[in-house]
C-alpha cells in the first residue's frame, strides 16, 4: 500500500510540473526571476538624491521608526495604517514626480510591498524602491 502511495505521489509531483512550466512561460516577462525587485524598479541613494525636488520620499517603516528619524520631507506610509496614511499622502502627491519608497534595510520587504500597492491602488507609475533602504541612506549621509 505504501509503494502505491509513493508511486501515485510521484506521478502527481511530475504532473504538476506541466502546467507550472506553462504558467512560467506565460508569466516569463511579468515576474522578476533573479531578484524580488526588478532592476528597473530599484534606485540607489545617489540617483534618488540627484532627482532632488523631482522625487517624493515614502517611508514604509513602522510609525515608531519613522518618528525616530527619517529622510527629510518623507511621508510615512506603512501597511499598519494603510488607508489612513494613504489618505494623508495622496493630496501631497504630484503625478509628475517620482516616488521613492524605503524601509529599514536591504533585507526588508515593506518598501517592495508599499511600492506595489502604490502602483496597483493609487495607479502611480514612477514608483521606485530605494536600494539598501534607510540603512544605506544613513551610511551615505555620514
Amino acid at each position, binding site marked *: 500500500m505504501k509503494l502505491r502511495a509513493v508511486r501515485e505521489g510521484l506521478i502527481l509531483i511530475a504532473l504538476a510540473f506541466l502546467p507550472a512550466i506553462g504558467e*512560467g512561460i506565460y508569466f516569463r516577462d511579468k515576474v522578476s526571476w533573479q531578484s524580488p525587485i526588478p532592476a528597473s524598479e530599484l534606485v540607489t541613494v545617489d540617483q534618488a538624491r540627484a532627482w532632488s525636488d523631482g522625487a517624493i520620499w515614502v517611508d514604509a517603516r513602522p510609525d515608531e521608526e519613522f518618528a525616530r528619524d527619517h529622510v527629510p520631507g518623507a511621508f510615512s506610509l506603512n501597511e499598519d495604517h494603510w488607508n489612513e496614511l494613504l489618505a494623508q499622502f495622496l493630496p501631497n502627491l504630484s503625478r509628475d514626480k517620482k516616488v521613492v519608497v524605503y524601509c529599514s534595510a536591504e533585507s526588508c520587504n515593506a518598501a517592495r510591498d508599499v511600492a506595489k500597492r502604490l502602483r496597483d491602488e493609487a495607479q502611480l507609475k514612477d514608483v521606485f524602491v530605494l536600494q539598501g533602504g534607510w540603512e544605506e541612506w544613513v551610511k551615505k549621509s555620514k
Partner: protein
Amino acid sequence: MGEEEQMKYAWRVVDLIIGGIFVYAGVSKVLDPAQFANDIDNYKTLPWFVSVRLAFYLPWLEIFCGLAVISRFFYRGGLSILTGLIAVFIGATVAAKMRGLDITCGCFGHASKNWNFSTHLVLDLAIFAAILALLFANSRHRVEL
C-alpha cells in the same frame, strides 16, 4: 442506512472539504504567482530564485492533490503529499513567528491576507488533523463509494 455506510459518507464529505480547500488554495495562488512568490520570500528561508519557482509549482501541486482527494483517483498519493505540504507549512509558520517575522501566509491568496497567526495555525492544524484522520481511516478500511 447502517452505521458503516454512514461513516463512509461522513469520510467522503471530509474528502470533499479537504480536496476543495486545496483546490481553492491552489487556484487563488495560480492567479497571482508574483504575490505568492513574495509571500514565500517573506518567510526569509529560501533565496528568491527558489521562491519564485516554487510559487509557480506549489499551487499546481495543491490543485492536483486536491483533485486526487476529491476524485479518489491517486487518492493515497494525493493525501500523502498534502500531509507533507501542510506539515512543512505549519513548521515554517511557527518558525517565522519564533523569529519575530510578521507575515501573511499567502495560503489562500488575497483571501488570507489579513489573517493573524492564531487563525493560520488553528486552520492549518485542523486541516492537518483531518488529513491524518483520512489517511488513518483509509488504511483501516478502504473507504469507497
